């Protein structure tokens, strides 16, 4: 399995089958609020995380709420 995806700008081996697994692998508690995910520039609603799978060269953005002005 040599498929790679980009997670927050970093190229990584695609090893998870769904977004929710990917979040857990990246240390994100998917049950908590304040987190959002975009797949190829489109926001994936929280309710769809468990059903959404990735393919080679997908770009995933995982964001959370931080301090700001």
């Amino acid at each position, binding site marked *: 399995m040599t498929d790679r995806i980009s997670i927050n700008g970093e190229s990584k081996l695609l090893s998870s089958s769904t977004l929710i697994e990917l979040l857990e692998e990246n240390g994100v508690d998917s049950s908590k609020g304040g987190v*959002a995910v975009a797949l190829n520039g489109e926001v994936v609603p929280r309710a769809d995380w468990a059903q959404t799978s990735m393919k080679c060269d997908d770009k995933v953005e995982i964001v959370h709420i931080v301090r700001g002005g």
Partner: protein
Amino acid sequence: MDTKVANNEFTIAGKTFSSRFLIGTSRYPNQQIMMDAIEASGAEIVTVAVRRVSQDSGGEGLYDLLGDRFHLLPNTAGCFTARDAVVTAELAREALETNWIKLEVIGDDETLFPDVEQLLRAAEELVNKGFIVLPYCNDDPITCKKLEDMGCAAVMPLAAPIGSGMGIRNPYNLRIIREQCSVPIIVDAGVGTASDAAEALELGCDGILLNTAVAGARDPVKMAKAMKLGIEAGRYAFEAGRIPRRLYATASTPTDGAIEL
């Protein structure tokens, strides 16, 4: 209107807030000082940002800390294009379950002035997507009017560059914006101290959004309180109506009955 109490309530997009002070969460010396400063400010609307989760941060827990107690207003800080700002707003909506967004589209790293062309484009798209858009914009009456006309819930002109603490560089423009716009006007950026905040309210602005002036003060908690009082004083003065400026004196003590030797 009650003549003894200034109207500290104001309404944005049908939601009424008891404070005209909107405060940021960045750059405080530590978390406890941030919490104490927000408390002292009396603010209900607190701004936050959206950033990539990094391996080492593991989540700041800011959402857990503030989410239940305040109206969190996400921003699109750091966005330089309408597309980035729109996607950031959509991510913020998903993360916070709010359709409110403080829209920033920056044109230049050094001044952090808005890119008006990209800002207008992003504002229109977000309004069409059902967002409550609060745009950070120049103190330009034409831009403010365009933003209002396209359906923004408020306009947030800068008083001076972000974090500069320069105060209100163009009070006359803010007056014109006040006369031409009917949506709430929130001065966002440039306020340095309590008298700046008071001046903005005296000019008829509805609220103040600031961060650095409090977070960067020697005593952020005290400055938060000072800003709160400045905003309240400014609102009182606006409602009371200042006297006209005159070049020459007008005696305040009656002259009748004064002795003549």
